[in-house]
C-alpha cells in the first residue's frame, strides 16, 4: 500500500491525485503502527495512540495542502503538477 502510494505520488500528474496517494502512504504507516502494537507489544498502546495522532496530523496536512492547491488553481486554473515547475535549476 505504501508502495502504491509512492508510485501514485510519483506518477500522477494531478496534484490532488498526488495527495490521495499521500493519504495512502500515511494510512499504510498507521496500519503498520497498529499491527506492530497489536501483535508484538500488546501490553502498551503506543502504536495505537501514535496512529490516533497521525490521523489528526494527516487531516491537518490534507487541509493545508488542499487549501494551497486550490489557491494554485485559482491562479493557474489548473492542478497539473507540471504547472509548478517554473522555478528550477
Amino acid at each position, binding site marked *: 500500500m505504501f508502495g502504491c502510494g*509512492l508510485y501514485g*505520488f*510519483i*506518477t500522477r500528474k494531478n496534484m490532488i491525485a498526488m495527495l490521495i496517494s499521500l493519504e495512502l502512504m500515511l494510512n499504510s504507516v498507521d496500519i503498520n503502527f497498529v499491527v506492530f502494537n497489536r501483535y508484538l507489544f500488546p501490553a502498551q498502546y503506543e502504536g495505537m495512540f501514535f496512529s490516533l495522532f497521525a490521523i489528526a496530523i494527516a487531516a491537518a496536512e490534507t487541509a493545508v495542502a488542499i487549501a494551497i492547491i486550490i489557491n494554485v488553481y485559482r491562479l493557474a486554473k489548473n492542478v497539473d503538477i507540471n504547472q509548478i515547475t517554473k*522555478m*528550477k*535549476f
Partner: protein
Amino acid sequence: MPLSSTIYVLAIPFFMFLFLGLVGVKMPRKITGVLGVLGMAVTTVWAYAIAFTYFFGDGPQKVNDVYQQLVTTDWTWLSFYADKLVVKLGVLLDPISAMMLVVICTVSFMVHLYSLGYMSDHDGNPEKGFQRYYADLALFTFSMLGLVVSTNIFQMFIFFEMVGVSSYLLIGFYYGLQPANHASKKAFIVTRLADLFFLIGIMILSFYTKTFDFKEMMGANGGTICNAFTSAQGLTFMGCSVTGWALTFIFIGGAGKSAMYPLHIWLPDAMEGPTPVSALIHAATMVVAGVFLVARMFPLYVLEQGAMDIICVVGAFTAFYAAAVACTQSDIKRALAFSTISQIAFMMTSLAVSSAQGKLIGGHEAGLGYMASMFHLFTHAMFKALLFLCAGAIIHAVHSNENSKMHGLHKYMPITSIAFLIGCLAIAGIPPFAGFFSKDEILVACYEKGIGWGLWMSMVAGMTAFYMFRIYYLIFFWKKHEVHGEHAPKDQPWTMTLPLIILAAISVVAGFVPFGDLVTWNGKPLETHMNWSVAGASVGIALIGIGLATVMYRKENPLPDKLATMFKGLWTASYKRFYMDELYQFITHKIIFQGISKPIAWFDRIIIDGFFNLLGNVTNSASFGIRKMQSGSVQGYVSYYIIGAVLLAAITGAVILCI
C-alpha cells in the same frame, strides 16, 4: 705612517663615493671633479706612505727580512656560525697587497686627473653624468682597494662583486647608447657567471677547511697549510680531489674577471665605456683581480698541481688567442683590449708555471713565476694605462675609435705619439723599458716549466710586439691625416697630458724596481738574475715583430690587404674574434632564452596555471552538469528523495551486514 691607518686608504674613496653620489650630483661639475681628484690625491699619497712604510720601514711587518702578513683591521661583518665561518672585513697587508695599493692608487689618480679634461664634454656638449662618473670612479677605487687588502676569501668575493658592479656602472656610463647598454650587461653577466663558480669554489673549500681566512687557511708566509685542507685533498669527487675542484672553480671566478678564454668576451665590448675607465678598470686594475686571486691563494694552488695545469693551459692558450685577434682589429680600443687579455694571460701562465718547490734552473729559486707575474702585473698596469690614456686622447681628438679615421696623427699630437711609443716599447719588451724585465722573467719561468711552454710564450711575445706596433703605425703614420671639419686634432689640455707624461716616465723606469726583494710568495727575498739567453732571445723576437710591423704598416702599402685576401678565412676569423661572440649569442638567445626560459614560461602558463584553471572549470562544468537534478518538478524531487533514502539504507546495510 702607521700601517694600522691603511683603512683610511679605503675609507676616503668610500666616503667620496657617498658624498659625490648623494650630494655631489647637486653641485657644479667643476667642484665635483676637483673634489674627486683631491680625494684621490690624498688617497694616493696615503697609499704610497703605507706601501713605503711596509716595504722599507721598521716594524712588525718585517721579521728577519721576511715580510709578514699583517692584519691591521678586522671587523666581523657576517658570522655564518657563531665562532667559525665568520666573514670579516679587514685589511691584510703583505707584499702583494701593498704593491697593489700603489698600482691602484697611481692609476686611479691618473685617471681621475685625466678625466677632468676628457669627460668635461661629450662631442662638444657638457657631459651630463659628470658627477655620477666621479662617484662611480670612487666606488670602483674603493672596491678594488678592498679587494686587494682582503683578509679572507669571502671578503675577496664581496669585492669581486663590487668591482663587477662598478665596472657595470662605468661601462654603461653612456647608458643612452645601445652598445654601451649591451656591453655593460654582457660584462656583468659573464663575470657573474664566473663568480658563480668562484662562490661554489668558496663553498667547497670552506666546507672542508671550515674557514674563509687566508691566514688560517694557508698559514702565514706559506707556512703550515691548515690540516683540514691537506686532509681534504685525499677526498675525491668524480675522480679528482675535492680541493682540486674547489681551486679550479675559484680560478674560473678569477678567469672571469681576468678575461681568460672563453670568458674573455666581455672585455672587448667593455671598451664602450669612457676611455679613462677602460684604462683604469679594463687594463690596469680590475682585470688583474683574477691574477691577484690566484696569487693570493698560491700556497694552496701549488699543492694542487691539477688545478695549476688547467690554469697554465688556459693562460697559454688565451695569450696566443688574444694576440692573434689583436693583430687584425681595426678599433684601437679593442685591439688594446685584446692585448690586455693576452698580457694578463701571460701573468696567469707565469703564476701557473711557478712552483714552490720547483727545480732550480739557471740559479733561480722556486717561486720565480709568482714574482714575475706580480712584476708584470705592476709594469703592465702602468704601460697599459698609459696606452689607454693615449688612445683616449686620440679618440678625444678625432671622435672615433676606428684607426681608419686616424692615420698620420704624429704630426698633430706629438706628445701623445711619444707616450704611446713608450708604451709600445714597454709592452713589446724592449730594454730598458719596464716590460722587458717582467716579461723576461715570465719567459724564464716558463722555460723552467718546460721548453715547450717557453717557446710558445716567446712566440706570443713576438706577436705582441707586432700588433702593438701595427696599431702604433696605423694611428700615427700610415698616411697623411685627413682633416675633417674646421678643427684639426691637437694635443690635449694639461690635465690629460700630465698623466700621460707621468705614466710614461714610470713605464720607463719601473723595470728597475727590485721586485725580487719585495714581492715574493713567501715574503723572503728572491734572488733574481738576468737569464741572458732568454732575454736575448725574447728581445730578438720582439724586434722581429716590430720589424715586421714596420714593413707592413709604416707607410701606406697594399701588403696588409694582400695578406688579408690571401688568408681570407683566417683573417676574417681573427677579425671576428674567432666567432666567440656569435657562439655566446647562440647560447644565450637560442638555448637559454628560447630553449629554456620560453618553454618554462609556457609550461607555467599552460600546464601549471592551466591545471588550476582546469580545477575551476571542472567545478563549473560539474555544477552545470548536475543542474538537471533540480528539475523543478516535485515528482522528480521525490524520486531523488526516495532513491536516495533507499540507496542510503541499502548501501549501509550491505556494508555493515557483510562485514
